[in-house]
């Protein structure tokens, strides 16, 4: 008796991806992530809209002008968490459960396992980012009574696509750590450590390092300052302005080792002045938006670097996983 030779029905990669995707989106963890992400996004946007109307006294114009800042603030922090939550037990979890042995005992190549997981995670991340974002945008449309223009919609969609890429960068880092860690607890701790380092510590170090070489000039507010955006002015002489430019240039140079920096830059170029994103403390004047294609043309180096971050982490986990001894 032998095993019948069968025609390949579905590539193994898709079989693994389908199972992984189905398991992920039905898991409590994923549902919780989407709900929490949505709530934080709504809260963040509501707070910013309220701040814009009460503190600044006037709201920026256009749909994106009102919602983009809340969106970028939430996604900048939450996209990495989505990536880490999906990637931190990808391999170590399978190893701990013993299900890795179940998979590898079957006639499939190891790369089908890791590629299938990556494909499933990409789809799940897309859902985790698009569902709360679109729900929030819809809610904001109803609340503000303003509809986005086609250009704004395209900008939002493109920004969300890069948000998925940003989340997948952290997924790839978490998967790499999960591949080399013996236990999931170890992988989770390492992943969170990396996130804190890239999101908080390195930007702080960047400012400190820049401060050593180029002292940050002090800002002077005019004595007759009143509330309202039109009256916010900072007194700075040309020498101080140059010093400030040098300071921020140095901060950016140090921060550019993080994927967060590049994602912030991409966000700024896609959503433009709408986002109100102050790149690492720099002030972005509202209304400076470039046309989308021109913005993408300006930030392509950041896109390439972000892709390289994700690719490097994924290729490293791929190579380690496919060569790991199974004992």
């Amino acid at each position, binding site marked *: 008796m032998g095993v019948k030779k069968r025609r390949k029905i579905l590539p193994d990669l898709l079989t693994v991806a389908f199972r992984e995707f189905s398991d992920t989106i039905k898991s409590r963890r994923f549902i919780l992530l989407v709900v929490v992400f949505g709530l934080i996004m709504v809260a963040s946007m509501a707070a910013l809209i309220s701040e814009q109307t009460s503190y600044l006294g006037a709201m920026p114009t256009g749909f994106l002008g009102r919602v983009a800042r809340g969106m970028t603030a939430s996604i900048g922090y939450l996209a990495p968490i989505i990536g880490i939550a999906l990637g931190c037990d990808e391999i170590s979890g399978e190893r701990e459960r013993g299900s890795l042995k179940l998979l*590898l005992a079957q006639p499939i190549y190891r790369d089908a396992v890791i590629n299938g997981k990556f494909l499933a995670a990409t789809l799940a991340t897309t859902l985790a980012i698009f569902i709360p974002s679109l729900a929030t945008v819809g809610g904001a449309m109803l609340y503000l009574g303003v509809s986005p223009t086609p250009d704004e919609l395209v900008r939002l969609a493109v920004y969300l696509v890069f948000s998925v890429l940003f989340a997948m960068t952290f997924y790839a880092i978490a998967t790499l750590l999960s591949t080399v860690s013996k236990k999931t607890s170890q992988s989770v701790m390492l992943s969170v450590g990396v996130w804190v380092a890239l999101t908080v510590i390195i930007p702080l170090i960047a400012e400190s390092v820049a401060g050593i070489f180029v002292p940050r000039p002090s800002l002077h507010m005019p004595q007759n300052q009143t509330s309202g955006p039109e009256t916010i002015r900072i007194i700075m002489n040309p020498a101080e302005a140059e010093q400030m430019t040098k300071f921020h240039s140095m901060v950016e140079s140090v921060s550019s080792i993080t994927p967060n920096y590049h994602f912030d830059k991409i966000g700024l170029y896609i959503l433009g002045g709408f986002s109100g994103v102050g790149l690492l403390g720099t002030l972005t004047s509202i209304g400076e938006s470039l046309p989308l294609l021109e913005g993408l043309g300006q930030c392509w180096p950041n896109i390439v670097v972000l892709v390289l971050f994700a690719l490097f982490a994924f290729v490293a986990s791929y190579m380690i996983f496919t060569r790991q001894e199974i004992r």
Partner: protein
Amino acid sequence: MEYVVETAELTKTYRSHGITITALDHGKFQIRKGSVFGLLGHNGAGKTTLIMILMGLTLPTSGTAKVLGHDVVKESLKIRRKVGFMPEGIGFYDHLTAQQHLDYVAALNNIPQGERKGVIDEALSTTGLSEFKDRKVGVFSRGMSQRLAIAQTLLKDGELLIFDEPTAGVDPEGAREFKNLVGQLNKEGKTILISTHLLSEIGPICSDIVIIREGRIVVQGGVSEIVERTMKEEGYWIEAKFNKDAASLAPILGKLEGVSSMEVKGETVILKADTDIRSAITREATKGKVDVLSLRRLEPSLEDLFMRFYGREEEAKDIA
């Protein structure tokens, strides 16, 4: 003779904490087609490493191995397509049911959708899991998980089935059922490789064995051949029961050629001799007009052999 597994000088070394560990040391053995092959050894002896190499999941450091004619390094996928494998410490996804697990495994083995239900139902029925097929594996007992592990092995109808520590942690009833299943599968023509350190449970069903210790194969062959060889080397123990007190016959039996010791207990005599002297005992009993009620060799059990070969290795090591 046709072999399903052949290895030559198979060696595997690991680096661990700066030390080189030899998990397998120039292993050479064959597995006959149609046999129930026991891979015996203590925990850490190198059994799992050997199996992982045979399944193409670990690369050998040197040497060669072929499974069903396929090279373990170059054709591991073909091997896993034809060999049902239950790894030690296999685990499942808690949120999936037994049926869903088997469906996933069937899909990975490229079993067409139309055939899956029949194949899965048969595997569930064979392992006694039919009534639990819709239950999530998270609530399964260890024994039930072990049955599911066996069920996934049966899905692909492989020519060779490999079970690594199949009865570890299983209750005696489960172990008995496993033995029966192995017997049934073997009758269907399948070759079965069982790795275990629990000799009393699995040993009796093995036709051939390899005893492995610290990565080295210390003995291999058919169980009956090894028993015969051991008795030839260490002497035959023969128990004879007569219809009356054996005291009158004892002096004659004690003088038979090759007898080195004898113990008499009423109608029973136990002798140790260099050769199998059962026919001589019958002859002397007939001469002495004593009926022989039973006459049997006291063969060493697998546990005896195991301990004997392990002991020998220890002695050899001490001498070296």
